[in-house]
């Protein structure tokens, strides 16, 4: 009985059914082959992204595309909580915008510089981090009076072509180059110093808020936020991909 049943099943499989099976097999093999080829390609790109010197990555569009394809997920999982999902920063946390095309607080915005900041952080306490400087708390330490800070804010308004009080701004300028010695970090032209993380004070970009009250607050209480070191928390490949993405998104577009 069993033999006859098996025989009847065999009879049901006709030649035209084989074609369907072959077609299905071909599709499966093609998809599998594509998946394997893609995985191999991405593994190669991941390796090349790390083995290529950071300054040369711009010259490899394929590597940049690859970094841009993997970095957003890493960014959203690790960086977005401070710098924002839109990468525009969070002034309440003092986390700077990362797609600002005008300035980087530290370094020149190159892949190598960004990579080091991600690796070792800012004021993270790691020996390789940018640990040296922080914005002095001029008000709370009594180095400047509230009136003097107000004058300094007015001078900053003037530097940024915003409405200001001339008399107060003049007094603020005297403080900038005198008692407060702001020029020491921010430069004689107030363009900042990326060696010390001193921001440019003339481009109306304010990491801790740009209203006069916000700027007053920054001068009064100082600024000493930290960026953690991500070495040993993210892989080197993830860090490089993030650095490439931030470099690409933040570098000035040629006009």
């Amino acid at each position, binding site marked *: 009985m069993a033999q006859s049943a098996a025989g009847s099943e065999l009879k049901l499989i006709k030649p035209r059914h084989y074609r369907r099976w072959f077609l299905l097999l071909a599709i499966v093999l093609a998809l599998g082959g594509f998946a394997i080829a893609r995985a191999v390609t991405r593994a190669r790109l991941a*390796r090349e992204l*790390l083995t290529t010197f*950071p*300054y040369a990555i711009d010259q490899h569009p394929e590597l940049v595309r690859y970094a841009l394809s993997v970095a957003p997920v890493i960014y959203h999982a690790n960086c977005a909580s401070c710098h924002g999902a839109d990468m525009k920063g969070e002034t309440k946390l003092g986390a700077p915008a990362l797609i600002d095309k005008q300035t980087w607080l530290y370094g020149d915005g190159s892949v190598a510089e960004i990579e080091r900041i991600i690796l070792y952080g800012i004021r993270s*306490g790691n020996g390789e981090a940018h640990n040296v400087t922080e914005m002095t708390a001029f008000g709370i*330490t009594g180095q400047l009076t509230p009136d003097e800070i107000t004058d300094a804010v007015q001078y900053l308004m003037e530097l940024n072509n915003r409405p200001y009080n001339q008399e107060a701004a003049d007094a603020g300028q005297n403080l900038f180059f005198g008692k407060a010695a702001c020029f020491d970090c921010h430069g004689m032209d107030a363009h900042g110093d990326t060696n010390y993380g001193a921001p440019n004070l003339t481009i109306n970009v304010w990491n801790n808020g740009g209203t006069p009250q916000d700027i007053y607050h920054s001068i009064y209480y100082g600024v*000493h936020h*930290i960026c953690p070191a991500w070495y040993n928390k993210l892989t*080197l*490949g993830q860090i490089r991909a993030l650095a490439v993405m931030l470099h690409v998104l933040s570098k000035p577009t040629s006009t």
Partner: protein
Amino acid sequence: MSTTSKTARVARKSSRGVIATFVSAEFRGVTLPAAAAIIGVTLAGWSLFRASAPPTKIVPPGVAALVNQRPILTSDYISEAETEVSIPFEQIPDDQRAKVLRGMIDQELLVQRALALDLPETTIEVRTALADGLNAQVDAPALAVSPTDDQLRAYYFAHRAAYASEGTMTVHDIVLKVGGYQNVDQDFGQAEADAEEAVYKLRSGESLADVMEHYGFVDSGRVQNDTEFDFAAKIHLGDKLYAVAETLKDGDVSDPVEMDDGVHVLVMDNRAMPHYSDYEAVRAQVYNGYRDALRAQAEAANLAYLRANATILLAPGMKE
């Protein structure tokens, strides 16, 4: 037909039978999983019991060199090269790049050797640097905090003594010895009574020298009988006597103070009280003190965590 070929044929038949049995419909559902399980277990066993893999000879991406399997990151290498040569990395000639990398490899070798020699255990500078390095990382989040004016003011009032000028005092510490070669027969009760009388006479205006001579007081030798800062007087007098001395004003005489060596009386010639600085005048110091306190708290919390997770055994008689 030989016996051997008969046996072979029977064996072939029986093996075909076994295979047929397992390939048959009723066993098919079990055969493949069983085969997979056997292969899996075999592979796992082989992986577990084979010799460990030899160290890799491939330098991972992102690493400039592997020194005894320890990586030197490309990022560190580039940064070091730019720092040493002071030009962008892409402009640094190959020979200078090589020199930098050689230096980093040499340093890594020295570090590894230092670890092998257990320098962290034996060299105080290394131990200090390690502890400081860790504390710097522990401190970082605490130092990112911006105190408010209210917080600073509260901190100031809780630590006012830290923001006071140092007081000074010229104090005499005389003692009526009990026991010892100077007053062998003296007991504490008698000494206490004599001291009470002496204090009365001193407060009545009798001279210190006369009272000392009359009752047998001697100079304790703890203080210099000259003006000295409060902190010095505290060290010299000890906590118990200093606590009495700091309450005395010019010309005051203390009540008798019983100590191990006898009964002491303090006579204050001159006292300049500490001057507490106004908050506004010391804001910067208060700010630094507040942040130092935060740092200390963070380090203490870290140590508490480490201790809670450590096994620390003390030898008999040892205390910490």
